[in-house]
């Protein structure tokens, strides 16, 4: 764990929660105008909007905790890859519609559990953000679960695509439910939940939906970690190049 992180685990956590929302929201927003049907286009855009709104709350908290006079926008647009704390799952490419949905489902199932647990955080600011976000996450999870079942237990083509997506993405789920020193420190003082507890409930919930979707969880898969410490996969660099272009090319531009 980097020294700075040890000094401010709360900041690391706020960045993790906020960056998850920001990066996934940015990925999902790329579907706007491109989804297979109009209703899905609208659902994806609304989901992205919720996530980016939530990212703003978390990054405002992070900026405050950091205390260096930076704003939520500064954190979103002026940090480089290694300073992002989002999970690897959030930054994975959109792929086909099946991969986008599977990524959303695996994340939503975790996000909803996490936010529900954070309602009783000893930190009132965190509990306040969770109270707002959990209601939105519930709608996200309902939609992504529904579609994973319909497409998994759908045609042979949709089933095959959903299975491929699950095989591809499963290895990025480990870090979401594996506690590191920061998680342990925050769980000890009641700021964040014990990830071991989240793991059990996440697996139960995910297994239930995937079974109904007739999809098979890859066995003995190697779990890739790194997002929470800033070791990201290739796609995040491309995403940031796109998302941060305006502020890099025209520093301080506003509208």
């Amino acid at each position, binding site marked *: 764990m980097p020294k700075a992180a040890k000094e401010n685990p709360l900041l690391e956590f706020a960045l993790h929660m906020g960056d998850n929302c920001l990066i996934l*929201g940015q990925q999902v927003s790329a579907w706007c105008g491109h989804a297979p049907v109009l*209703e*899905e286009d*609208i*659902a994806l855009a*609304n*989901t*992205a*909007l*919720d*996530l*980016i*709104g*939530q990212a*703003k*709350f978390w990054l405002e908290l992070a900026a405050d905790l950091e205390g260096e006079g930076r704003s939520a926008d500064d954190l979103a647009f002026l940090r480089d890859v290694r300073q992002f704390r989002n999970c690897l799952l959030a930054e994975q490419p959109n792929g086909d519609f099946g991969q986008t949905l599977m990524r959303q489902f695996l994340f939503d199932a975790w996000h*909803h559990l996490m936010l529900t647990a954070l309602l009783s955080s000893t930190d*009132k600011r965190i*509990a*306040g*953000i969770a*109270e*707002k*976000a959990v*209601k*939105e*996450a*519930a*709608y996200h*999870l*309902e*939609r992504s*679960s*529904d579609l994973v*079942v319909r497409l998994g237990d759908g045609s042979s083509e949709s089933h095959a695509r959903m299975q491929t997506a699950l095989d591809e993405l499963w290895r990025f789920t480990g870090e979401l439910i594996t506690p590191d020193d920061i998680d342990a420190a925050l769980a000890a003082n009641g700021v964040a939940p014990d990830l071991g507890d989240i793991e059990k409930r996440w697996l139960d919930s995910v297994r239930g*939906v995937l079974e109904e979707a007739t999809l098979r969880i890859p066995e003995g898969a190697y779990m890739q970690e790194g997002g929470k410490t800033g070791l990201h996969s290739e796609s995040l660099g491309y995403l940031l190049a796109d998302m941060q272009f305006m502020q890099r090319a025209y520093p301080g531009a506003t509208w």
Partner: protein
Amino acid sequence: MVSAMDAVSEPLSIEDIWIWLGEVPDPEIPVISVVDLGIVRDVAVSGGEVAITVTPTYSGCPATAVIAMEIEQALRRKGVERVKIETQLSPAWTTQWISKEGREKLRAYGIAPPVEGASCAGALKAPPDIMCPRCGSANTERVSQFGSTPCKAHYRCTDCLEPFDYFKSF
């Protein structure tokens, strides 16, 4: 203590301000006001400055910034010079705060008002029975949980065959 000076420069009554805010329309559903919607949480007057506490509906709702601007403009038109808009996250906004009048206005406008107690808990379950705002039939079906704005779902009536928006319980 309220001095004579304050009394002269502070003829603003909290009741008047609530009435003025009741005339500020929601930018996306203009038939209801920001007060009907239940997002104005507090009005305070202190030394000629009016502080309005507003809570967002959905985290990323693009109307939030417009609402703050419209509240400020409405109060300025009434002669209030110093307006402060504060955002409050907790307690989180719920559709239970939409006024009775607001619900009727929604229905008359063609948007089915929220069915309380039917908010989503994240698990797969059957959608609630929603009455068609046009013909009153209960034979309706959900097209999509996500509609034209974050707060609405997309439904259709299987009797009068009209599509309509449902303001989802939240």
